[in-house]
């Protein structure tokens, strides 16, 4: 599969998720999360994960979307308070730039999974799973980012 397809699908996924997270309207958020589930299911399906893709679409675009819609109807919360929208969007842009650049430089320099199996013997079973690298990245940055953003979002 060519790299352009992966780039296009990833861009579509990011656009739908950003539209869902930073929309003030609950209906737009639900529709965009539905589309994001579909796009992620298509990614799984295209890259030889047909069962995973189908289960993902059935679970998230089907069951979870219906549950969210039911809860929205029960609670009547159609307006999503996201605080200062410009601040949220600028912080999201900074997050995308920093995390995207950091993870791209980290993972493009690292050997691929198949090469890692050949070069590392004892801990090969750990490093064949690339999400371990991502987990370390998440643990380091998530604590600091959560506390800073939580302070910014408090009511005056």
């Amino acid at each position, binding site marked *: *599969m060519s*790299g*352009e397809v*992966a*780039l296009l699908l*990833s861009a579509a*996924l990011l656009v739908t*998720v950003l539209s*869902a*997270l930073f929309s003030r309207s*609950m209906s737009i*958020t639900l529709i965009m*999360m539905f589309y*994001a*589930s579909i796009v*992620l299911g298509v*990614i799984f399906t295209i890259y030889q*994960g047909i*069962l*995973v893709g189908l289960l*993902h679409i059935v*679970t*998230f675009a089907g*069951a*979870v979307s219906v*549950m*969210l819609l039911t*809860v*929205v109807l*029960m*609670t009547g*919360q159609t307006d*999503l*308070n*996201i*605080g200062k929208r410009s601040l949220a969007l600028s912080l*999201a842009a900074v*997050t*995308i730039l920093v*995390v*995207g650049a*950091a993870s*791209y430089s980290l993972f*493009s320099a690292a050997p*691929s*999974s*198949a*090469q890692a199996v050949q070069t590392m013997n004892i801990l090969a079973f750990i490093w*064949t799973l*690339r*999400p371990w690298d*991502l987990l370390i*990245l998440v643990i380091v*940055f*998530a604590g600091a*980012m*959560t506390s800073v*953003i939580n302070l910014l*979002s408090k*009511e005056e």
Partner: protein
Amino acid sequence: MPSDQTVFITTAAVLIFLGVFAMSYSRNLLKTIISFQVIVFGANLALFSSGLGASSNLMANTLVLFSIVVGGSVEAVGLALIVLVHKKYGTLDPWKIRRLRD
């Protein structure tokens, strides 16, 4: 042109951080659940892309299946709790709920 695995791992990292960001920034519990869903999407994509470079991606697919089931179940429980909180406090703003609790 970066490889597919690099593109998907980078997208997964961005999704996870966007979810954490939105979860900590939002003042609505429904938005928190949606942010959690975004984090689950990122985790699923990271797990799936971990098997792209290998000869067999069976283990990655199995982990993604497990993650999908667990993520859907956690979201269902979270939505049920949201309904209960809304019945008791009449609002979904965590700061207001904290004040009403005292």
